[in-house]
């Protein structure tokens, strides 16, 4: 006999209603809105009516091109030197209203490299800042995911021992997770300070004054690294707890059996612990990846994308576009691209880490 609760739908919907309504309003509707708006030229505040513009936002964001230039030669084929170096035609002459290169129109240099001889190859992008943001985000993900996951696992193995006071260590490692990322970012901005920051002071002290202070967040070469280090530190405790929960699902008898069979510490890890953590590893990897793709708060508090766009990220760009520049359609397009990116990366990860037994 069906229970009253499964039969009377009305009461059920009524009770689920508030939560369901809020989820629809703040998750589902914005999600579809982002899709819809990304095909328009909607601005945050504009007197002009919204128009459908097709894929133009995406074309603007994703437009990339390549151009190889040879040095300027005279009629005899001799390379012209200027200040002792070969002279090249101006890049601008190809990307600004050049009828022979319509596909490069409006693009700017992302970077250039020299492959063969004196030819220079330029990689061009229609939206240089966005492409930089994408590259930075990938760099961040590629470094943070293995580093954070690995460090968290290392910490877990350290704190998963029966020692007196081990809970103190667990608490210390977990503490940064409880503190808001904004607060953490402000603190680390002080630590990274170029003049009197804690990090510079410590390094100077440790090297007896030999170390020259670095403006960690103010140099293009160190800014992203500084943010990566701080981000890894902040969330490592969270993943440590996930690893710990996975570790504790492994039956202690397996370890006893392994010790009787004569397995060394490394063999125990290799044959018992790691295989037992396979599912946890997949979870940790996917969670870290998704969080890393969403990198925003640290950037917003610490560098605002600078210096020289060296810490631009996808989410920061989406917000910056949508609200800073009031370009809602551009921001939406970035959000949609991020969604597709995270989705495909997660699917790839799931495919690569699929369990062997499931075949």
């Amino acid at each position, binding site marked *: 006999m069906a229970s009253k609760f499964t039969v009377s739908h009305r009461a059920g919907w009524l009770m689920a209603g508030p939560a369901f309504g809020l989820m629809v309003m703040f998750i589902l509707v914005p999600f579809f809105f982002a899709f819809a708006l990304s095909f328009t030229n909607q601005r945050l505040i504009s007197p002009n009516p919204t128009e459908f513009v097709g894929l133009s936002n995406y074309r603007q964001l994703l437009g990339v091109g390549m151009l190889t230039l040879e040095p300027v030669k005279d009629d005899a084929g001799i390379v012209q030197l200027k200040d002792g170096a070969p002279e090249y035609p101006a890049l601008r002459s190809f990307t600004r209203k050049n009828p022979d290169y319509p596909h490069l129109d409006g693009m700017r240099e992302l970077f250039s490299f020299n492959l063969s001889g004196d030819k220079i190859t330029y990689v061009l992008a229609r939206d240089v800042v966005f492409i930089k943001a994408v590259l930075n985000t990938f760099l961040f993900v590629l470094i943070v995911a293995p580093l954070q996951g690995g460090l968290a696992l290392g910490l877990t193995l350290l704190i998963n021992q029966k020692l007196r006071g081990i809970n103190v260590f667990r608490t210390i490692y977990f503490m940064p997770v409880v503190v808001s990322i904004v607060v953490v970012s402000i603190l680390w901005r002080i630590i990274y300070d170029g003049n009197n920051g804690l990090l510079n002071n410590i390094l100077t002290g440790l090297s007896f004054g030999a170390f020259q202070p670095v403006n960690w967040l103010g140099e293009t070469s160190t800014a992203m690294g500084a943010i990566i280090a701080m981000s890894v530190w902040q969330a490592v405790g969270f993943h440590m707890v996930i690893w710990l929960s996975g570790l504790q699902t492994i*039956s202690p*008898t397996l370890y006893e059996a392994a*010790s*009787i069979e*004569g397995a060394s510490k490394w063999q125990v890890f290799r*044959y018992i612990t790691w295989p*037992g953590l396979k599912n946890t590893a997949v979870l940790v990897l996917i969670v870290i990846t998704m969080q890393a793709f969403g990198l925003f708060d640290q950037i917003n508090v610490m560098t605002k994308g600078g210096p020289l766009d060296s810490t631009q990220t996808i989410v920061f760009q989406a917000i910056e576009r949508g609200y800073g520049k009031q370009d809602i359609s551009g921001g939406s397009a970035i959000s949609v691209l991020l969604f597709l990116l995270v989705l495909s990366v997660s699917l790839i990860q799931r495919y690569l880490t699929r369990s062997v037994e499931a075949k």
Partner: protein
Amino acid sequence: MARITLKGLKKSYGNAHVIKGVDIDIEDGEFCVFVGPSGCGKSTLLRMIAGLEDISGGDLNIGDLRVNDLPPKDRGVAMVFQSYAIFPHMTVRENVAFGLTVSGASKQEKEAKVAEAARILQMEHLLDRRPSQLSGGQRQRVAIGRAIVRKPRVFLFDEPLSNLDAALRMDMRMEIGKLHQQLGATMIYVTHDQVEAMTLADKIVVLKDGLVQQIGAPMDLYHNPSNLFVAGFLGAPSMNFITVQVTAIDGDKVLVSGPGLNDVAVSGKRGPFTVGQTAILGLRPQYLGVNDDTGLGKLHGKVALSERLGAETVIEVTQASGLPVIATLSRDVVFDVGSDVNLSFDPDHAHLFQPDESFTKNAH
């Protein structure tokens, strides 16, 4: 070479003394069973021998070596766990070969030894399966396979059959018995099941509260239990206990009588007894005659319950004093509930015990 001696072995967790000084000698090639109720320390003792628990006091020797402080792998022992403890992500083959893998054996050696173990345990067809595809009995086989493949000097079994159903338990019990004959290695087997203890053991060690109650061959313990605990623990149904008074002593015979029991002279080997003291008379249900008046000892009562098992009949008889006595007949007999029966026993098969504080409240 793999003689095991435990001398004054102790184990404490803080103030809790779990093993309180245990002395056991296990000969090379012997099948020794530790038996006792749960919490008696038998598993702890086994784990101390394996090296999984630290030893708080005393000496543990395997062969000629004192192994108190050696890690498990250096003791030459293999262990089979109650929960099997086979590695879930490895195939049966990898599981069985695990000990060889970690010691760096060659591929050929591994294959040969795994094949031999699989042949002994008749599980060649299972080698490429994963543990999740095996039944409980098959998993236990794999665990035993992993133990025998390294040819250890000592096998330790920690309640290996407890997770199996009754029919399978009997099969596996017989197989373990055969395995012992085949390998001839020293085996220590922990169980709370007295049938496993009686059928498998060369030597049984009965433990209670961290102390050895009695050590001996199964039939020794059955026919000559040294105290009330051992008497009550071994044998099914349990021995009947009747509170009696000592009325006279004649050499090594003690004359006792009790409510509903005539005067009988029984052996006083668990003495000394004094005239007038209270003692406990133990009677095995199998040695009680029903309505045949052959024995000199006599009891009387009404049938309260009759269980017919085909090969035997178990009846519970309530005496005039209200206390029950269990009798087992080795044939199928019909008893009406409430009918009068006379029970008799041969005083040579009766056991007289000193009253035991912890036991008198349970004795009838």
